[in-house]
């Protein structure tokens, strides 16, 4: 197991390296320069020259690339990820302070997904072709097809606009009483639902399919044949095997948590990583953009690794 984790970690390095090269190339090839923002008749050319030297833009691109690649992994240093061209602060700190909000939103959405999707998926499978199954399957098909950002728009217009019950933006109310857990929870209702509904749809379809698959297997029939209680067979023998593949889904959902739901966070002005990323692209804050891509890629790599390791732990048939 340890050697497997080590091998996978080593395999991740060239992938992250590749991501770094491609995103660096995009930024390098982009027309214009980050200092264009400062160009105006009031700024003397010497100041611009100083800025170019300060940001290292006078260096050839390979020197910039090597410098970036060599300092980026040194996360313990404050300036490892460079300085934001917009916030005038170390990129590392800006990203770190946004992570809690993103994790809160994504984590809650994931929790809601697990709590809702697994029971309704099981219900649909156990009572196949019943009315409950048809309702769940129809919901899942439609919910899976609606783009989550459109769902976000609908929820915003309905919950905050027409009904006027929920707050339309941010994470806490300004002023007195703002920011206590209940207030934050109130702000989370709409963004969490817009993230969770699509995931619930996808997960419940998957759980239903896996459960149906397992219920048809020989060992389940044997258990029933030897006279075990039907519920015991379903919820003890079948369920455990049906839930193992769900771990894969967990690993696929995880990276979305870290890089943030870019659009959902923007629609609801949620102060997380995703919203920061959009802002960084808008302001052409290259160091921040690059760091955001790397954090996102890191999330994918870790998510995949975690899913495979958990799968191995849960399923004794898998040997590394």
């Amino acid at each position, binding site marked *: 197991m340890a050697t497997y984790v080590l091998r996978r970690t080593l395999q991740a390095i*060239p*992938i*992250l390296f*590749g*991501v770094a090269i*491609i*995103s660096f190339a*995009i*930024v390098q*090839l*982009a*027309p*214009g320069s980050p200092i264009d923002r400062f160009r105006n008749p009031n700024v003397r050319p010497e100041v611009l020259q100083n800025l170019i030297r300060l940001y290292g833009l006078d260096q050839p691109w390979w020197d910039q690339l090597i410098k970036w690649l060599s300092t980026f992994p040194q996360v313990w240093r404050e300036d490892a990820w460079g300085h934001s061209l917009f916030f005038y602060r170390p990129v590392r700190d800006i990203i770190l302070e946004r992570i809690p909000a993103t994790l809160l939103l994504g984590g809650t959405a994931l929790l809601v997904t697990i709590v809702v999707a697994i029971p309704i998926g099981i219900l649909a499978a156990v009572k196949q072709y019943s009315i409950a199954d048809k309702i769940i399957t129809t919901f899942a098909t*439609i919910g*899976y*097809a*609606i*783009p989550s*950002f*459109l769902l976000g*728009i*609908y929820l*915003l*217009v*309905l919950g*905050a*606009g*027409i009904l006027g019950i929920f707050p*339309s933006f941010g994470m806490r109310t300004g002023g007195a009483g703002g920011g206590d857990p209940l207030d934050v929870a109130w702000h989370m209702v709409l963004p969490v639902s817009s993230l969770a509904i699509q995931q619930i749809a996808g997960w419940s379809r998957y759980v239903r399919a896996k459960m149906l698959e397992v219920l048809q297997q020989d060992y389940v029939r044997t258990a029933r044949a030897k006279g075990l209680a039907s519920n015991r067979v379903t919820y003890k023998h079948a369920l455990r095997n049906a839930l193992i593949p769900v771990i894969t889904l967990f690993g696929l959902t995880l*990276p979305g948590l870290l*890089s943030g739901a*870019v*659009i959902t966070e*923007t629609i609801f002005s949620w102060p997380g990583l995703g919203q920061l*990323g*959009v802002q960084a*692209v*808008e302001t*052409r804050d290259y160091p921040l*953009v690059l760091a*955001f*891509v790397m954090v*996102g*890629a890191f999330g*994918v*790599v870790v998510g995949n690794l975690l899913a495979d390791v958990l799968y191995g732990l849960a399923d004794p048939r898998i040997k590394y």
Partner: protein
Amino acid sequence: MADRIDALEIDDIARQRREEADSLAEDVDRTPVRTYWQLVRRRFRQHRMAVIALFVLAILASYAILVPLITGDAYADPDIFKPDAPPEIFNEEGEFTFAILGYNEIGINLFARLAKAIQTSLTIALAAVVIILTIGILVGSIAGYFGGWIDNLLMRLVDIMLSMPALFIILMLVSFFGGGSMGIVIFAIAFTGWTTAARLVRAEFLSLREVDYVQAARALGAGPQRIILRHMLPPAMAPVVVAATLGIADSVIVEAALSFLGFGLPRSDASLGTMLNVAREFFFTDPTKVVYPGVMLMLIVLAASFLGDGLRDALDPRQRVEAK
């Protein structure tokens, strides 16, 4: 005497046999011989939702093509006297106006603008999917056919692409290189989207490579180009067609999301995304503005995903459907 009876009997038997054979032949004629495509059509028709979806998409497509053709530049022609005016089927002169859905906030005929918006969104999606298929099939077939280090190299590239936050990379490309042109939106969607098609084609090729008829073609001296194009690509196309259908849905969503955030097309261009972007200003004052582009987007995405499901079942030659 005995000989005569024998001859008569033989005649009789011969006639019987002939009749039997004739009726058998008739039976054989009546049993239809179905080609692959007839079976595909039969299986597809049994998928009710997919048939409805195809119908819906056909209606949307003809709406998006015909209405802009007939109404000309009505989709970009504001009338300062008609902001948010209600539907008006006939104007003062009694002519048909096509303003079935009324006018938008600057007095543009909404029915015409919606048609143009669907046209733009579908054009972007189709163009992106064509590029995705071209790159995906090329990379996938090279990796799957040659295997070895070429396969390894290309698949690591796919791994790298899949590790990047796709939507964010699209945002970067469109924002840094864009200037709001349709071309860069198409390019950005294709840049991040080709990996699925490549993986599918590669997987099919890896299994097809070992199949007897491909081995036979190789033994007969066919070159890689002929084997790939004639023998391996056609049977590998089924999952690719399904992925392309779903890819259209994804591309429409991405374009809408981009333009909604203000990164894709400029607001003066009509697309489902830009219409949503305009509606964003009226979320709390006039929420009805979300309805038309939102519903159209949902219809396209739902229809494309049902169509994809139907095609998946219909194109799979391993599926057997009893004749009805």
